[in-house]
């Protein structure tokens, strides 16, 4: 069977499974809609949290990021899993004891202020939308490559599926669907990774394979460690070595600050915190946190292995290949524009880290711009470099050198010549990852609007039925907006992700942490703390990314602070402002102090 048929089979089967589950567990009240009636067992909740947590970014992009960044890619591994530890230890158990549905609800209640609630709602919605847009793009990429449908058709199908099971089942439906999605995505990730590991190193466990010797074959020296061989090849082709630390923009400060920002930012992500309300008591919440991280770690320990395998395979399968024997995977991915080749005239592919590189990606260029560059380049070649322009210089200037990192995971099975069904299965896994996260986020958007904004702020007398209606309508509305971003992917999605984590780090984390561990912090210091963190971080990222300002160095930081790393500074400013203002303003009400005190007692079983 062809890849296409296999893909239709797997995607069709998995989608019908999700819809069947959503139908079986549909709900009728707000408790079930937002927190699954608090009746989900710890391991299942852990699995659902893991699927929710691992987005298209984890499944599709992360291996690619590590693959191209090498050591510096560790910030994503450490940042995203380390943030989970912070969440499980410092935030979740206490929020769970206080019994709030959402982060904005906690912030609004704890600091006894509707403006604080509103700031939190706006942040939660912004962060969620940024994330959803990324998921929808992931769905579009997968559909356009594997199902040969138009990207827009793919996004419509994705929207319809998410809409049906999110509105029908609410949190309960989403939770059980995510359990199924976890199995689909983890199998889809492990099968090709294990197969490639066996192929390259002979080890079944990819994490061990990564640190082992290469199997003797035509392209590798015998008995050389995979990582050493990779380091050597990268140096030979003009990059820095894979395992080498602190290169270029990734100075030690930036690696440290970015890892910390991602940790703290993930801990503040609203769609994951809400998962800790779906189990019946604090003890179960702790177990569910353990299971979630356990299930997440299975993918996160394999991803760096896949990243190194794929980099090794890509360098060796492309370099020196002539025009006539280009690998098949290259031809099928070339159509998507995620990878393209501009020859220098010798009909041999060169994929390197210096100016002789011939492998690029189309990035944000539209088809006509791309065609112009290609025809100018052709003219340049045919006229013996007299007329036209060298396309490679233009692409390098636009920083479009190297393939799009998203193809590393998706094309890895093809690069390793694995069977068609494995390649197709990866497509189903990527869709599961994107859809599970998208649905969780849409629920956060809907609960922020229906519960926090509508019920708690606008119409506190709303009936149960009314709230549920507003919840479902806002999901529908959110799906449409997310779909719009999927169809017209804003060029800035990648940069906005830095924004989402930076803002979450600078706003939520300090406010929640101080709200739990400090009884004295009152309304005004908390609001000023959040605002100063948000405004400073937003200002710096806009200044750096959108206005191309030069990064601040404070005279000591080599290469300046990367925008991704700035969340750490925003967070410190938030902490500092809040704590400095606290003694000057009144403490929270007696009632609130008692409530915080109640968290410090063991919960009755």
């Amino acid at each position, binding site marked *: 069977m062809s890849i296409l048929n296999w893909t239709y089979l797997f995607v069709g089967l998995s989608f019908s499974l999700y819809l069947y589950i959503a139908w079986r567990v549909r709900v009728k009240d707000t408790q079930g809609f937002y927190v699954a009636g608090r009746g989900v067992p710890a391991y299942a909740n852990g699995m659902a949290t893991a699927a929710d947590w691992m987005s298209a970014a984890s499944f599709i992009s992360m291996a690619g990021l*590590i693959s191209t960044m090498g*050591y510096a*890619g*560790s910030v994503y*591994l*450490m940042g995203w*899993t*380390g943030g*989970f*530890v*912070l969440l*499980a*230890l*410092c935030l979740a*158990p206490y929020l769970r004891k206080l019994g709030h549905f959402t982060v904005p609800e906690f912030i609004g209640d704890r600091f006894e202020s509707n403006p604080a609630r509103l700031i939190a709602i706006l942040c939660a919605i912004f962060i969620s939308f940024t994330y959803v847009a990324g998921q929808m793009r992931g769905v579009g990429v997968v559909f356009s490559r594997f199902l040969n449908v138009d990207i827009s058709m793919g996004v419509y199908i994705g929207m319809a599926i998410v809409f049906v099971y999110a509105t029908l089942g609410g949190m309960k439906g989403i939770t059980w669907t995510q359990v199924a999605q976890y199995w689909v995505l983890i199998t889809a990730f492990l099968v090709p990774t294990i197969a490639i590991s066996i192929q390259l190193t002979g080890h079944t466990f990819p*994490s*061990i394979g*990564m*640190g*082992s*010797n290469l199997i003797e074959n035509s392209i590798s020296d015998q008995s050389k*460690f*995979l*990582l*050493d061989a990779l380091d050597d090849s990268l140096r030979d082709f003009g990059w820095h070595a894979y*395992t080498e*630390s*602190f290169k270029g923009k990734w100075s*030690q400060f930036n*690696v*440290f600050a970015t*890892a*910390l920002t991602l940790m703290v930012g993930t801990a503040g992500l609203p769609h994951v915190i809400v998962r800790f309300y779906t189990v019946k008591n*604090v*003890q179960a919440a*702790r*177990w569910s*946190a*353990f299971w979630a*991280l*356990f299930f997440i*770690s299975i993918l*996160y*320990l394999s991803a*760096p292995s896949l990243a190194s395998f794929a980099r090794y395979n890509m360098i060796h399968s492309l370099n020196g290949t002539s025009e006539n024997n280009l690998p098949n995977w290259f031809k099928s991915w070339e159509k998507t524009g995620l990878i393209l080749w501009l020859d220098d005239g010798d009909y041999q592919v060169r994929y390197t880290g210096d100016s002789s590189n011939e492998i690029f990606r189309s990035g944000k260029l539209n088809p006509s711009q791309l065609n112009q560059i290609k025809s100018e380049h052709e003219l340049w070649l045919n006229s013996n470099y007299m007329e036209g322009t060298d396309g490679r210089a233009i692409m390098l200037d636009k920083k479009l050198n190297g393939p799009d990192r998203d193809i590393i995971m998706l094309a890895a099975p093809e690069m390793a010549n694995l069977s068609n069904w494995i390649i197709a299965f990866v497509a189903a896994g990527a869709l599961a990852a994107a859809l599970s996260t998208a649905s969780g986020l849409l629920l956060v958007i809907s609960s922020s609007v229906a519960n926090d904004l509508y019920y708690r702020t606008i119409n506190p007398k709303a009936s149960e039925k009314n709230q549920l209606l507003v919840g479902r309508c806002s999901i529908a509305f959110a799906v449409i907006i997310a779909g719009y971003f999927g169809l017209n992917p804003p060029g800035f999605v990648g940069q906005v992700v830095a924004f989402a984590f930076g803002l979450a780090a600078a706003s939520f984390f300090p406010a929640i942490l101080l709200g739990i561990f400090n009884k004295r912090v009152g309304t005004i210091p908390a609001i000023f703390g959040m605002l100063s963190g948000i405004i400073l971080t937003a200002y710096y990222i806009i200044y750096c990314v959108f206005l191309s300002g030069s990064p601040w160095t404070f005279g000591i930081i080599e290469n300046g602070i990367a925008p991704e790393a700035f969340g750490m500074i925003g967070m410190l400013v938030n902490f500092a402002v809040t704590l400095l203002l606290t003694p000057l303003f009144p403490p929270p009400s007696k009632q609130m102090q008692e409530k915080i005190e109640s968290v*410090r*007692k*063991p*919960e*009755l*079983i």
Partner: protein
Amino acid sequence: MKNKTNNLPIKNNLYWKTNLKVLITLLFFWFLFSLGFGILWVDFLNQFSLFGSGFKLGFWFAQQGSIIAFVFIVLIYALLMNRIDKRYQIKR
């Protein structure tokens, strides 16, 4: 009866203190295994390799070791805290 109500806040306080102790200890290891071994001291650790494998030690902590440590930290937290919860439950 009077005694019991007087004792209550002190015992609860002890529960909270134990809770904080567990938290701070685990956060110390959280920092050590990731930001510490994986970033701050990575170049020093990279002189060594992990049990003679192809992994440089610092690189291994950054891409594998930290994640393994995280799973254990959350496991120990769940075991310890649930036990502490139970102990203070009985005393009450």
